C-alpha cells in the first residue's frame, strides 16, 4: 500500500519520459516512438492496476503525499499526489483506454509520415491526463490541465497543413481558454480565502472541513456564499473542457484531428476531465447550508448539464458527418454526466463517465475503422451496406450503439443512464431536468439508429462505386474494438441497483448483492419508462431511415420534408457559431480595431510629441554645450598646450643635459645650505 | 681585518702534541722563534707557503694521476717514461712549459693578454685561505667565509673574458662567451645548492659548518643534503669547465676556446688556475656536505682530521677524473637548459625541503621516518618530473648571433 503511494508519481512520469525521448527521435523512427508510447502506458497501466487493487478494501482510505515546491516569505507552496478510489478508477480507465487506442493507432497511423510525432504527443497527453488524476493540489491539477489542453491543441492540429484542422485547433484552444480563465480566477480566489491549494492535507486541505466551513460562512456579492462563487468559477473550467453549453462549439470542430485522437481525447478521457474536476471538487461544490436541496453551485451544474444533453442530442439528429454525430453525442453525454453529478453525487456521474468512456471510445474507433475502410470518407450518406464488408466492425459498432442508446439490461449505458435518471427523478428542486434527460435519451437512440442504418444497412451508396471494395481493418485495429466491446457490456454490471459495487467502492462501503432492489417499484417504473422511450426511438429511426439508407446522398433527409425550418436550424447547430461570429467575435474585433486606433494615434502621438520635445531640448543643450562648455574647455586646453610647448623647449631628450641640470642644482643646494648655515 | 681572528692566538690555547695537531703545533713552534712583533706575520707567511706547497704539489700529482687514470680507462698506459711509472712527468712538463716561447699575437691587446692568467690564478689561491683542511687548520676563519669564497670565484669569469677578448681571435671570443654564459648559469645552482647547508648550520663560517656535522651526521646523510651534494658537484664541474661541461675549451669545435692564443708559461698558469679552482670547489664540497675534516663515524676519530679531509678530497678528485673519462660533452643549449630548467628549480625545491627538515627537527622515531620519506618523495618526484621536461628538446636551426 505504502509502496504504491510512494511510487505513484511514476504513473504520469513514465509516459512523460517516453514523450521527451520521442520528441528527440528522428521522423523515421516511427516504430521506436510507438513502442515507447505503448510500453510506457502499459507500464503505467500495470502500476495503475496495482494502485487500484490497493484501494479495493472497503474502508475508504485516502493516501496522499505532499512536498514543498518552493518557499516564498514565510509560506511555502506545496504540491502533492493523492490516491483514493476516485483517482484509482480514473487511472485504470485512462491507462486502459489509452493503451487500447495507442495499439489501435499503430494500424490507423501506419501510413502517416509523422507517426513519431503523433506518438510523442499522445504520450504527452497521457502523462498530463494521469497527472490530473493523481494531483493533490489544485495548482498541479491546473498545470496538468493546461498541458492536456496543449496536447489537445497539438493533436487536433496534427494535420496542420489542412486549414480546417489548424482553425479547429485554434478554436479549441481559445474556447477552452475562456473556461480556464474562470478556473484560474477560482483557484486564486480559493487560495486567497483558504490559504492552501492542496486538496487533502491532514485536515487543512481546501477540500476538508476546516477550510470549507469558513468559506460557506463568508458572503460575497449578491449574498452568495464565497464557496458558491469559487465553485462556479471552477465550474467554468469544467464547462470549457467538457464542452458544455455555451462553450461546446469547439468539440465538434475538434474532429478534424486523427480519429484515435478524437476517441481518446475528445470522447473518452480529456473531455471527461471537466467531469472529473467537478467530482474532485465535489466537497467544495456541494458545500451547502441546506443539505436537503443541495448547494446552488450544484443546481447550476445540473441545469447546464441537462440543457447541454438535450441541446447537443437534437443537433446530432441533423448531422451527416459520422464523427460529428459522435461528437455531439459526446457533448450530450457529458451533459448527462454533469446532470448526474448535480443530482446524484460523485458516484452517479463517475459511473456514467466510466461506461461512456468504454463505449464512446469503441464507437469512435469503430468510426475510425469505417473511415479507414472507406479510405477517408466521413459522410454517412455516402456509405451503406458496410456490414457485409466489415463484419467485425459492424458487430462491435452495434454493441457500442446499443450501449450508448441504453438498450436494457445487457449494456453498460443502460445502467449508468438509469442511475442518473433515477437520481433526477428524485431531485427535490425541479422535475424539468428529468424530463430533459428522458428527451435526450430518446433523441440519442434516434440519431444513433439513423447513423447505423445509413452506414451499415441498405445498399452500398456512391461510396461503393468510388471505392470498389471497402475492406475490413487489420487485426491491430479490430482487436481493441473487440476488447472495448466486451468492456462496454461488462462494465455496466459493476453498478446495477442489485449490486451497486461501483457506488459503494467510491464511497468506501462494502457492496451488498440484493437482487430485489431491481424490482423496487420506482426503479421498475423508471426502467419500463426508459425501455419504452428507447424502443420507440429505435423503432421510429429504423422506420424512417431503413429505406432512406439506400438512397443517394443528393436526396434530402427524410426528416427535412415534414419540417424543413427546424431541420435547417438543427443542421446548422442552432446557429450558435454564427451567433458567436456575429456578436462576440465581431465585438472583439471591433474592440481590437479601436484599441489599434488608440495605440496608433493616441499613444503613438503622445510618444511622437515627447520625442519631438526631447529633440528640441537637445538642440538647446547642444548649443549650450558647444558655445559654453566646449569653448571654455578648448581655451583652457590651448593655454595648457602653449605653456607645455614652452616648457618642452627645455626637455630636449638629452639625458646628459638632465644630468648637468641635476649637478648644477646640487651645487646650488649646497650653496643654499651654506648660506643658510652661515 | 678584525673579523679574521688571529689563528695563532687560538691555536696556542689548544696546543697538544697529538698527531691530529701536528701541523698546528709545528707552525706555532717555528713562529715562536721569531721576535714577538713579527710573529703574526711570520706565521701568516708560513701558512701561505704551506698552502702553496701542498696544493701546488697536489696540482702536479693530479695531472699525472689524471693522465694515468684516463689512460687506464681508455686501455692504454698513459705517461710512463719519466721516472718510476712516469711519475716525474709533471716536472718534465713544467720545464717544457717554462722554456717554451711565449707567443703573443700581433693584434692582441697586450696588457690584457698578459693580465688574464694572473687574474685567474691569484684569486684562486686566496680561496684556499678560508678552507678548513683539518681541526684548527684554516688560514683565516672568516665570519662570512663562504661569501668570501664565492666573491673570489667571480674573478675567474673576468679573466676568461680578458683572455678571450684580448686574443682578438673569433674562436677565443666565442669560447670565452660560452665559458662566461656557462659559469654565470651554473653559479646560480651552485649558490642555491649551498644555501640549505647555510640554513641548517646557521652560519656562513666554514669552520662552523664543519662543526655542525659531527661524525655520523654529515649533511650528506639527509635527503636534501644528498640532492644538494649532487647538484653542487654538477655545478662545480661546470664552473671549473671540466668534462662533460668542457665545451668552452672544446678542441674539436673552437680550438681550445679562449686558450687558443696562449702558450708557454701563461698557458701553464691557466692550467694551474683551472686545477686550483677545481681543488677549491672540491674542498668546499667536502666542507659543506662531507663533514670537512670530521670522521664518518665516531669510532674512527682516532684518524687525524687532516687525513680525513685529504681522503675525501682525493676521492672527489678521482670522481671528477672518472666522470671526465666516461661522459660525452654536452651541447651548449643542453647545458643551459639543464641549468635553468632542471638544476635551478630543483635547487629551489631543495631549499624548501631543507626548510621542512629544519622545521621538523624535533621529530621522534616514527616522525623521523615520515620526515625522511616525505622529503625524499618530494625530491624524487621533482627529479622525475623535471627530468621528463628535459626530454625531446628540439633545436631550432642554429645560428650564432653576438652582435647583429
Amino acid at each position, binding site marked *: 500500500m505504502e509502496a504504491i503511494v510512494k511510487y505513484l508519481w511514476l504513473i504520469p512520469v513514465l509516459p512523460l519520459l517516453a514523450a521527451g525521448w520521442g520528441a528527440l527521435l528522428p521522423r523515421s523512427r516511427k516504430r521506436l516512438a510507438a513502442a515507447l508510447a505503448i510500453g510506457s502506458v502499459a507500464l503505467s497501466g500495470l502500476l495503475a492496476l496495482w494502485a487500484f487493487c490497493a484501494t479495493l478494501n472497503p474502508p475508504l482510505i485516502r493516501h496522499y503525499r505532499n512536498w514543498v515546491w518552493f518557499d516564498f516569505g514565510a509560506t511555502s507552496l506545496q504540491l502533492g499526489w493523492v490516491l483514493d478510489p476516485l483517482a484509482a478508477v480514473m487511472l485504470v480507465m485512462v491507462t486502459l483506454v489509452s493503451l487500447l487506442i495507442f495499439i489501435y493507432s499503430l494500424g490507423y497511423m501506419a501510413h502517416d509520415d509523422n507517426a513519431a510525432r503523433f506518438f510523442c504527443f499522445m504520450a504527452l497527453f497521457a502523462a498530463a491526463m494521469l497527472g490530473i488524476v493523481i494531483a493533490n493540489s489544485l495548482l498541479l491539477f491546473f498545470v496538468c490541465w493546461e498541458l492536456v489542453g496543449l496536447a489537445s491543441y497539438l493533436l487536433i492540429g496534427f494535420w496542420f497543413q489542412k486549414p480546417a484542422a489548424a482553425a479547429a485547433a485554434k478554436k479549441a484552444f481559445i474556447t477552452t481558454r475562456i473556461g480556464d480563465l474562470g478556473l484560474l480566477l477560482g483557484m486564486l480566489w480559493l487560495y486567497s480565502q483558504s490559504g492552501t491549494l492542496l486538496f487533502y492535507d491532514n485536515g487543512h486541505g481546501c477540500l476538508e472541513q476546516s477550510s470549507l466551513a469558513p468559506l460557506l460562512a463568508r458572503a460575497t456579492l449578491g449574498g452568495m456564499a464565497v464557496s458558491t462563487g469559487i465553485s462556479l468559477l471552477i465550474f467554468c473550467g469544467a464547462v470549457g473542457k467538457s464542452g458544455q453549453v455555451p462553450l461546446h462549439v469547439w468539440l465538434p470542430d475538434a474532429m478534424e484531428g486523427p480519429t484515435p485522437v478524437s476517441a481518446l481525447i475528445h470522447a473518452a478521457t480529456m473531455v471527461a476531465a471537466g467531469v472529473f474536476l467537478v467530482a474532485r471538487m465535489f466537497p467544495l461544490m456541494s458545500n451547502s447550508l441546506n443539505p436537503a436541496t443541495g448547494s446552488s453551485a450544484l443546481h447550476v451544474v445540473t441545469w447546464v448539464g441537462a440543457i447541454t444533453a438535450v441541446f447537443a442530442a437534437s443537433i446530432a439528429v441533423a448531422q451527416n458527418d459520422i464523427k460529428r454525430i459522435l461528437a455531439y453525442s459526446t457533448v450530450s453525454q457529458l451533459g448527462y454526466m454533469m446532470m448526474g453529478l448535480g443530482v446524484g453525487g460523485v458516484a452517479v456521474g463517475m459511473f456514467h463517465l466510466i461506461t461512456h468512456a468504454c463505449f464512446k471510445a469503441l464507437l469512435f474507433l469503430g468510426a475510425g475503422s469505417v473511415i479507414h475502410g472507406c479510405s477517408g470518407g466521413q459522410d454517412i450518406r455516402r456509405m451503406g451496406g458496410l456490414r457485409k464488408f466489415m463484419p467485425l466492425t459492424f458487430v462491435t459498432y452495434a454493441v457500442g450503439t446499443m450501449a450508448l442508446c441504453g438498450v436494457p439490461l445487457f449494456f453498460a449505458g443502460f445502467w449508468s443512464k438509469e442511475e442518473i435518471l433515477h437520481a433526477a427523478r428524485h431531485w427535490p428542486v425541479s422535475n424539468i431536468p428529468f424530463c430533459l434527460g428522458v428527451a435526450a435519451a430518446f433523441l440519442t437512440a434516434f440519431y444513433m439508429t439513423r447513423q447505423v442504418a445509413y452506414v451499415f444497412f441498405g445498399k452500398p451508396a456512391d461510396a461503393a462505386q468510388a471505392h470498389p471494395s471497402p475492406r475490413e481493418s487489420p487485426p491491430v485495429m479490430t482487436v481493441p474494438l473487440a476488447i472495448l466491446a466486451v468492456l462496454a457490456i461488462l462494465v455496466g454490471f459493476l453498478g446495477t441497483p442489485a449490486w451497486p459495487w461501483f457506488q459503494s467502492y467510491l464511497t468506501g462501503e462494502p457492496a451488498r448483492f440484493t437482487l430485489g432492489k431491481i424490482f423496487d417499484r420506482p426503479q421498475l417504473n423508471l426502467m419500463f419508462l426508459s425501455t419504452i422511450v428507447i424502443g420507440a426511438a429505435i423503432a421510429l429511426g429504423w422506420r424512417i431511415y431503413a429505406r432512406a439508407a439506400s438512397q443517394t446522398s443528393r436526396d434530402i433527409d427524410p426528416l427535412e420534408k415534414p419540417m424543413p425550418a427546424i431541420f435547417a436550424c438543427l443542421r446548422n447547430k442552432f446557429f450558435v457559431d454564427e451567433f458567436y461570429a456575429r456578436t462576440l467575435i465581431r465585438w472583439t474585433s471591433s474592440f481590437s480595431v479601436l484599441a489599434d486606433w488608440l495605440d496608433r494615434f493616441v499613444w503613438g502621438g503622445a510618444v511622437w510629441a515627447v520625442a519631438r520635445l526631447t529633440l528640441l531640448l537637445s538642440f538647446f543643450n547642444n548649443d549650450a554645450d558647444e558655445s559654453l562648455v566646449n569653448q571654455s574647455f578648448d581655451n583652457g586646453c590651448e593655454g595648457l598646450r602653449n605653456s607645455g610647448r614652452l616648457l*618642452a623647449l627645455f626637455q630636449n631628450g638629452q*639625458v*646628459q643635459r638632465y644630468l648637468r641640470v641635476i649637478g648644477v642644482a646640487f651645487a646650488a643646494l649646497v650653496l643654499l645650505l651654506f648660506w643658510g648655515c652661515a | 681585518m678584525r673579523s679574521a681572528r688571529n689563528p695563532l692566538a687560538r691555536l696556542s690555547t689548544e696546543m697538544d702534541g697529538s698527531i691530529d695537531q701536528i701541523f698546528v703545533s709545528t707552525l706555532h713552534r717555528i713562529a715562536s722563534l721569531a721576535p714577538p712583533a713579527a710573529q703574526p706575520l711570520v706565521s701568516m707567511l708560513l701558512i701561505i707557503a704551506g698552502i702553496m706547497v701542498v696544493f701546488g704539489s697536489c696540482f702536479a700529482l693530479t695531472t699525472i694521476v689524471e693522465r694515468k687514470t684516463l689512460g687506464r680507462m681508455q686501455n692504454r698506459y698513459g705517461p710512463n717514461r719519466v721516472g718510476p711509472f712516469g711519475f716525474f712527468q709533471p716536472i718534465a712538463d713544467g720545464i717544457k712549459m717554462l722554456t717554451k716561447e711565449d707567443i703573443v699575437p700581433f693584434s692582441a691587446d697586450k696588457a690584457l693578454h698578459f693580465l688574464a692568467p694572473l687574474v685567474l690564478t691569484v684569486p684562486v689561491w686566496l680561496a684556499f685561505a678560508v678552507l678548513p683542511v683539518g681541526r684548527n687548520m684554516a688560514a683565516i676563519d672568516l665570519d662570512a667565509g663562504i661569501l668570501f669564497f664565492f666573491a673570489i670565484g667571480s674573478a675567474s669569469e673576468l679573466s676568461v673574458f680578458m683572455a678571450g677578448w684580448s686574443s682578438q681571435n673569433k674562436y677565443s671570443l666565442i669560447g670565452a662567451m660560452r665559458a662566461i654564459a656557462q659559469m654565470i648559469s651554473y653559479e646560480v645552482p651552485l649558490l642555491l645548492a649551498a644555501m640549505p647547508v647555510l640554513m641548517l648550520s646557521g652560519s656562513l663560517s666554514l669552520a662552523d659548518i664543519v662543526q655542525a656535522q659531527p661524525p655520523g651526521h654529515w649533511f650528506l646523510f639527509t635527503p636534501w643534503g644528498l640532492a644538494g651534494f649532487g647538484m653542487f658537484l654538477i655545478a662545480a664541474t661546470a664552473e671549473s669547465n671540466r668534462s662533460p661541461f668542457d665545451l668552452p675549451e672544446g678542441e674539436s669545435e673552437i680550438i681550445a676556446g679562449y686558450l687558443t692564443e696562449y702558450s708557454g708559461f701563461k698557458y701553464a698558469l691557466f692550467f694551474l688556475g683551472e686545477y686550483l679552482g677545481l681543488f677549491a670547489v672540491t674542498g668546499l664540497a667536502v666542507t659543506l656536505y662531507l663533514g670537512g675534516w670530521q670522521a664518518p663515524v665516531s669510532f674512527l676519530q682516532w684518524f687525524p682530521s687532516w687525513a680525513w679531509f685529504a681522503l675525501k678530497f682525493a676521492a672527489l678528485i678521482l670522481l671528477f677524473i672518472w666522470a671526465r673519462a666516461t661522459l660525452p660533452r654536452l651541447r651548449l643549449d643542453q647545458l643551459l637548459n639543464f641549468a635553468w630548467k632542471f638544476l635551478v628549480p630543483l635547487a629551489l625545491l631543495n631549499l624548501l625541503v631543507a626548510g621542512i627538515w629544519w622545521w621538523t627537527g624535533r621529530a621522534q622515531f616514527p616522525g623521523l621516518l615520515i620526515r625522511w620519506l616525505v622529503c625524499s618523495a618530494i625530491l624524487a618526484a621533482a627529479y622525475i618530473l623535471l627530468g621528463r621536461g628535459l626530454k625531446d628538446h628540439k633545436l631550432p636551426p642554429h645560428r650564432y648571433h653576438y652582435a647583429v
Partner: protein
Amino acid sequence: MTTPLSHYLLLSALLFSVGFAGAVLRRHAVLVLIGIELMLNAANLNFIAFWRYGPHPEALTGLMFAIFSIAIAAAEVAVGLALVIAIYRHRKTSQVEQFQALKG
C-alpha cells in the same frame, strides 16, 4: 684606524665626481651607466664610512643601506643595459646624444 673620516669622504667625493664626469661627458650609453655605478659606489662608501665612524656602530643602519643599495644597483644596471641593447637593436646606435625620441 687612524685614518680620519674626512679622508674617506674626500675619496668618496672624488669618486663621485669622476663618475659624474663620465656620465655627463662621455657619449656612449654604457659608459654613462658605468659612471652612474661609480656614483652609487661612492655613496655606498659614504654610508659605510659614516657607519664605522658614527657613534652607534651596533645599529647597522648604514650597513643595511649599503646592502640594499647594492641590490638595487644590480637591478638598475640589468634594466639599464637591457634598454641600451634594445635601443641599439632598433636604432643601430648607442650614442646617448642620439637617444632623443622623448624630447618635448
